[in-house]
């Protein structure tokens, strides 16, 4: 990271920015390294922030759990959070989650990067949701790349009302006719498009879905 970062940025808001969006708890070492500050300063700043939030009666808190720092909802407001999580709105999957689930179902076992390549968008966040909802789980790793593979679960079958994967409908009847594809393809891309993905792997990062 640039020399400028260390000079210009205040430590506390920089820590707040990072911790607000990182997925996994961050260790003091890692934070100190990326922000180029002494670990001691980082540790002090984190504790000061945590105290500020408590003093100000914020609904969130900054906690050190198992060696890493992370924002959590404050326990006093657990009822509100649970009410939100329990809300019926969470029974439904987003369109992105459904599509990703469909790709996993028909391509399993499959890695996240393969799914991203097929869908043309980064699917990391969505895959996390599907894991969390128990609809997919991990099924070993790809021998060549070491990438984690995913498959659908029994819970998925249950929610779909299927007895087994062999009851998933064949895709063939839903495929557009060959000539229809060709016509559509020709009509669809007459102009040069420097944006079009040449390497799906890289393109997949263009957009991250939640």
């Amino acid at each position, binding site marked *: 990271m640039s020399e400028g970062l260390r000079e210009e940025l205040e430590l506390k808001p920089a820590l707040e920015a990072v911790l*607000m*969006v*990182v*997925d996994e708890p961050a260790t003091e070492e890692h934070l100190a390294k990326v922000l180029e500050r002494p670990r001691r300063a980082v540790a002090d700043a984190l504790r000061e922030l945590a105290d500020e939030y408590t003093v100000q009666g914020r609904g969130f808190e900054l906690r050190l759990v198992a060696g890493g720092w*992370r*924002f*959590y909802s404050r326990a006093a407001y657990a009822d509100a*959070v*649970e009410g939100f*999580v*329990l*809300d*019926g709105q*969470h*029974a*439904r*999957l987003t369109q992105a989650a*459904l*599509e*990703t689930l*469909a*790709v996993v*179902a*028909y*391509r399993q076992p499959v890695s996240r990067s393969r799914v991203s390549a*097929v*869908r*043309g968008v980064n699917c990391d*966040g969505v895959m*996390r*949701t599907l894991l*969390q*909802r128990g*609809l997919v789980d991990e099924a070993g790793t790809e021998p060549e790349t070491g990438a984690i593979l995913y498959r659908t679960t029994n819970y998925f079958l249950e*929610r*779909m*009302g*299927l007895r087994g994967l062999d*009851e*998933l*409908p*064949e*895709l063939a009847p*839903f*495929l557009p006719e060959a000539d229809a594809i060709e016509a559509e*393809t020709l009509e*669809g*891309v*007459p*102009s*040069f*498009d*420097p944006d*079009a*993905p*040449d390497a*799906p792997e890289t393109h997949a990062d263009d957009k991250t879905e*939640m």
Partner: protein
Amino acid sequence: MLAEAEAEAQPDAEAEPDGSEAGTAPEPEAEPGDGRFTVRLANFEGPFDLLLQLISKHKMDVTEVALSKVTDEFMAHIRGMGPDWDLDQTTEFLVVAATLLDLKAARLLPVAEVEDEADLALLEARDLLFARLLQYRAYKRIADIFSERLDTEARRYPRTVGLEAHLAELLPDVVISIGAEGFAKLAVKAMQPRAKPQVYVDHIHAPLVSVREQAEIVVARLREAGETSFRVLAEDAPDTLTVVARFLALLELFREKAVVLDQDEALGELMVRWSGGEGDGVPTVTDEFDRVVTEEKA
């Protein structure tokens, strides 16, 4: 003149395509050229965009702009950029230059008083072209704003942290209401192969029409009919280009004194009479119009 004054106020006006031209060296503290295209004409010097603006504000007459010179300058600019040439800039130039050309053509057509509907239509067409140009420029500027906003927004990251395990357990059962068939359709849609990028050039190169070939058709018909109108001769032409080719063929035949042309009034019916005799030989129609247009010096 005004154009120069405005051009000077605009730093981009100093952009040098290749730095080879003497006498226009940028001021010492001026920023290095950002690769933007600059037009140099007898009556204008400055960025292309400024030229458009002046035309749009009626401060310059499009008929006084030497488009061929603008085009030559642009080609020089693109060459000067070498491997760094910019497809977007080139495309934009083509779009705008084509519109300018339309506009200029419309302005150059003879317009007397607005008497009949044809004249009105001509004026309307001209206004539409003009409106199209302005509208395009408006969206181009909006696109710049979009680009800025997208860049700014990309520096803000949303919190998308997963639920803690104890909360995730509370989540209600998932309801998948689209059914197995809907699910399969969704899979097909999601897995549909994306088209590979291709460069289609059909819209750039219209199919070639040979004036020589069209001349043979015209000669054959005239020999049979003796005299007919150009309207009839061009009646079955599949496209405008063929009509143009047949007209050019007529000009060539006229030059060879193989036809006599007669038109009572401007824009009236053009009558064509064969005067090339009975022989089998087809009068010489050169390939003048068929040759690939080579680059012309400005």
